[in-house]
């Protein structure tokens, strides 16, 4: 059974540019996104900052109207049946904000229990259950303003699942959380799936998507550029190789020349203090070290290595292909 369906979903924002003479500017944040999520599935929407992940999720949870296209959650239209959709979904987003700082965790949950129509009797047991699930039992009477980022994030999750929704939307839930906290949060997300929920997760952490998701859609510049299981996405670049070259002071012109070398699929740059690391995705059957170094003639070159591609490389290749 399909729980989430997005068909050619588009969203354009109108903004202005210029200081004195303001001119309208249309920004296409989501450009024809389509995907479907089955019941009990953990579906990942993966992409860089500004790719359109949050805009897509906001349309699905009824906070934004699509400019065009259709979206249904649990068979209900997110535009015309917004209130019905809201009753049956949970929404969790990452970051420090979104909680009543001066209230305790229990009062935060009580308030949202009221908003979601959880009866007084059910509230008492349900709040204890979700506090236990997210590991905040014993700290629930403390004010949120004293919580760490990880605790806040766990409280966000508790709030999102308080009314026992069938579908949970998690928008970058581990952003800014320390590695131990993030691992605990990932376990909590896995527990949601074990409890039979359908989860749509947005993240830009490849390893997180790899560890949790049944299927992943990679989104870049508002469009889905790849979709499948983590294994299938990895297989897409498995026959290739990755050459990493340490260089100093290369500019965009050099990168453009590298990208057109025969056999090169994608080139990305990681800034590392004073040096740069060029990550070059190459076809498997080609030895490209010499032609690549030829393009770098005149620049100081450091270590050059070659390795097998990882899932992150698959992601980079997909996202980079649109550049």
């Amino acid at each position: 059974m399909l729980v989430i369906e997005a068909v050619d979903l588009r969203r354009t924002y109108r903004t202005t540019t210029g200081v004195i003479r303001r001119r309208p500017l249309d920004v296409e944040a989501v450009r024809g996104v389509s995907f479907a999520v089955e019941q009990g599935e953990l579906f990942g929407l993966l992409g860089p900052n500004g790719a359109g992940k949050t805009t897509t999720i906001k349309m699905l949870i009824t906070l934004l109207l699509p400019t065009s296209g259709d979206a249904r959650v649990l068979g209900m239209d997110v535009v015309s049946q917004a209130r019905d959709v809201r009753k049956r979904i949970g929404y969790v987003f990452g970051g420090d904000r979104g909680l009543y700082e001066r209230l305790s965790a229990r009062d935060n949950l009580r308030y949202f229990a009221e908003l979601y129509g959880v009866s007084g009797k059910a509230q008492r047991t349900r709040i204890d259950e979700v506090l236990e699930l997210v590991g905040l039992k014993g700290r629930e009477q403390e004010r949120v303003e004293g919580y760490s980022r990880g605790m806040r994030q766990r409280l966000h999750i508790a709030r999102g699942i308080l009314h026992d929704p069938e579908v949970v939307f998690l928008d970058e839930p581990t952003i800014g959380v320390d590695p131990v906290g993030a691992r605990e949060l990932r376990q909590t997300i896995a527990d949601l799936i074990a409890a039979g929920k359908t989860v749509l997760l947005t993240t830009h952490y490849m390893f997180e998507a790899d560890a949790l998701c049944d299927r992943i859609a990679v989104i870049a510049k508002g469009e889905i550029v790849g979709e499948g299981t983590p294994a299938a996405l990895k297989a897409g670049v498995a026959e290739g190789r990755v050459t990493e070259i340490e260089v100093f002071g290369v500019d965009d012109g050099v990168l453009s020349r590298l990208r057109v070398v025969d056999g090169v699929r994608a080139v990305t740059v990681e800034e590392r203090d004073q040096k740069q690391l060029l990550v070059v995705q190459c076809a498997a059957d080609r030895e490209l070290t010499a032609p690549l170094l030829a393009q770098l003639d005149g620049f100081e070159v450091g270590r050059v290595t070659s390795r097998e591609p990882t899932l992150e490389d698959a992601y980079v290749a997909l996202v980079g292909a649109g550049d």
Partner: protein
Amino acid sequence: MRRWLTVFFVGGSIAYRGLFNWIRPAMYIPTMLGSPLFQLIFFTKLGQFAQAQSRDFYIVGNSVQVCAMSSVYGMTMAVANERWFGTLGPLLASPANRAAVFLGRGMPVLANGLLVSAFTFVAGTLLLGFRPGLAAVPALALVVVVTVVSCTAFGMLLGSIGLRAKDFFFAANLAYFLMLLFCGVNIPLDELPGWMSAVGRCLPLTHGIAAAREVAAGASLLHVWGLVLTELGIAAAYAAAGLALFRVLEHESRRSAVLDAY
């Protein structure tokens, strides 16, 4: 209906605790009690010095007007702070009835406004010699309740504007002093320029203060009923405008992401 009422009362009270910036005693006492007290003493002494109006004119006017400390600032915070605390997104994503959520915020603000007004009246009695007849107290209390309701409704409209406007405290400050000047608190409405008194008659407080002065001077409730009903009508109009604006902004936020700061 029961769900509506729990969101209205329980939800309103929890949200108020979460959003009202001055709830801690260290902030509440100087802001909600100290400031009105000094306003009362300042204008009463100034008025007595100038011999423009009777002492009670200033005591009643200021004791009623100080409810705006709660109504204007409290209600603005109770609505507009949702956006600045980042809680507007989760709130709008919930299926809760918007009228219950919005109007429920007014109940604690209303109670606080009554407390501030009552405190200032008591201070006027103890420190400045205000002595309404005992028989006048119930009618005075009723008039004050109606006026605080009206002021709170005005605060709801300001709160909704604060959802959209970036510097909403600027608007709240402006509104507070606008009411002090335009509503006949320290200057009789008839002595204000025509346009100012016309604006004052459209604001909350004006009719309530006029009614409060009359009942404090011994008039019956029946005598001021027209003023009280007008104040109630103004309350209903501002509450409806505030709720309507909230709904419009919610719709606009879905359509064009105007509240998209959460």
